[in-house]
């Protein structure tokens, strides 16, 4: 067990290291100079610009040798300092991101978890009868083949324009005060629904298809045949098949996270929903490298943590791994 975890930890740390290095490289590789970009926005007088230039270069540590900048970056991360945004100068990047994180969590967590549970249930359903299979299967395939942003656009168009039930953009109405009042919560949910539904539907399709295939595979396994030979009712056979089929679906969740993040990004863009995805878009368009850097760092950490949690979860639910590691077998 210990060996397994140490090895996993090593890979995670290595991945983190590589990913952070790539992340650090983003502003360094940009042609031109982030400070220049910053100053261009301020449109200062030439003389003043020169002064500001050397000030900011020092402030951003760009006058130090490269290796020192790299080291400082790591130190800064552990202090929670992700630099200052250019787009929303002079706000610190970490603050901007932290504002966006709750929106992301409220959007991603329910949509991922609910679609996973519902998708798996429906997929298992589809494996019951041919009729169900022929209806659920095509729906699932169409949904999973649908590009995230297009479904978002479609939902937005139908449910916000053609039938103006939901709002098209943002997470709350302009005049709303952010508090924990019922009005705010209701307003937020009203805005939240379309991006949530859009993400949910595409992911749902994927899980349903995956589960349906896994269940069919499990129903062909020896233990399923033995249960049938013992005359166990259909329900028990299905229950065992489901329980066995869920395991690869858990690993599948970890693998899909990168794709889901990308999907959330474009969905947020369509609905101008103030999550990290939306931030990234703005940062790309305005060449705010530090913001981009910070956002990506966040996503990396999120994905790694999620992967780790799922690894732990998998060990708990699959006894074969536990036993295999304990070295117990006759």
């Amino acid at each position, binding site marked *: 067990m210990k060996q397994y975890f140490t090895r996993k930890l090593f890979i995670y740390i290595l991945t983190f290291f590589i990913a952070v290095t790539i992340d650090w490289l983003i502003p360094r590789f940009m042609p031109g100079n982030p400070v220049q970009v910053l100053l261009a926005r301020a449109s200062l007088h030439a003389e003043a610009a020169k002064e500001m230039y050397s000030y900011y270069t020092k402030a951003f540590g760009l006058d130090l040798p490269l290796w020192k900048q790299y080291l400082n970056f790591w130190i800064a991360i552990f202090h929670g300092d992700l630099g200052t945004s250019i787009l929303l100068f002079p706000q610190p990047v970490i603050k901007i991101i932290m504002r966006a994180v709750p929106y992301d969590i409220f959007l991603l967590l329910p949509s991922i978890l609910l679609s996973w549970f519902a998708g798996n249930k429906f997929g298992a359903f589809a494996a019951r009868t041919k009729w169900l299979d022929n209806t659920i299967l095509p729906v699932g395939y169409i949904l999973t083949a649908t590009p995230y942003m297009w479904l978002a656009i479609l939902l937005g168009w139908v449910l916000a324009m053609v039938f103006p039930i939901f709002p098209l953009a943002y997470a709350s109405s302009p005049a709303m005060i952010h508090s924990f009042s019922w009005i705010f919560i209701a307003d937020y949910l009203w805005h939240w629904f379309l991006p949530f539904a859009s993400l949910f539907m595409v992911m749902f399709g994927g899980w349903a298809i995956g589960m349906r295939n896994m269940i069919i595979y499990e129903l062909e396994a020896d233990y399923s045949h033995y249960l049938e030979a013992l005359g166990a009712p259909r329900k*028990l056979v299905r229950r*065992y098949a489901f329980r066995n089929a869920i395991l690869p679906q858990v690993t599948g969740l970890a693998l899909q996270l990168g794709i889901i993040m990308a999907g959330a990004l474009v969905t947020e863009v369509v609905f101008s929903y103030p999550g990290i995805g939306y931030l990234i878009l703005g940062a790309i368009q305005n060449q705010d490298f530090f913001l981009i850097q910070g956002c990506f760092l966040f996503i990396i950490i999120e994905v790694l943590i999620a992967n780790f949690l799922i690894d732990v979860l998998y060990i708990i639910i*699959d006894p074969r791994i536990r*036993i295999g590691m304990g070295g117990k077998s006759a």
Partner: protein
Amino acid sequence: MSLKVNNLKVYYQTLRGDVKALDGATFTIADGEIMGLAGESGCGKSTLSNSLILLKPPMRFVGGKVELDNEELPIWDMEKMNDFRFKKISTIPQYAMNAMNPIRKIGKMVSEILKSKKVDFKSTLPELKRRLDLVELSHDVLNMYPIELSGGMKQRMVMVLSTLMNPSLLMADEITSALDVSTQKAVAKMLVEFRDREFVKKLMVITHDISILYQIADSIMIMYAGKLAEKAPTSVIINSPRHPYTKLLISSLPDIGVKYSQKKLTGIPGKPPMLLIPPTGCRFRERCPVAFQKCLNEEPPFVEIKKGHFIACWKEFEKNA
């Protein structure tokens, strides 16, 4: 009380047509009888045992009647057969080593199966433990996962589980194939013990290894190409078989202590026929050393030529007549 099978026909559906894998089997197994079922691969013995316990696509019920203890078995009806499975008819499958759910503790699995069959686990537990003792399995296995057991242990567990409800008919499908010789002996002895203690009333042991049947079976039934060839008490089959195929089969078995230089090992040249479009007449005629004109045109019926001795062979009928 007995198992009466009458003209059972079960075909395999394939895209090219029906493969006549089991084409009219008629036989009886009496209480207390261990009948061995032997034959080459593809002769239909697995089809026979599978059709009795789990007849599902691509197998197709074509005709015939099966009676167990004077009750007709609705083998074509998957749902209705559930009432009979486990309690009246049971099986130790070929894949016994993989037969248990890998992610369930064995005891939990047993309790769930019993519960689903409306049997009370608690009251059955003492008997379950006694049976475990009988097959020399520790009670601890109930708390373990299948992966923690060796192949032989898993097989014994399946044997215990399959016979827990004292079924009237137990079918053991190639259960010694994957074992070493000493374990084979132990398992074979266990089967006999189950019968002796009346855990099971009738046993059908399917194998291609006749030497095992020699040890434990009361009677042996030989199948060839979907048809029954010969059925007789074990000693008769081994020592004085009458069907040409059986004769060749027995003579191709090596004797202990005999060297190749003394007596050559003979096989049976040729291959079994394809059962998509079976040959007319007797299916063994291509490889039969004594086949004559009648064998080409007419199929020999499976009849009793002597008490307890059934055979399907024109040549032998002639001898009798």
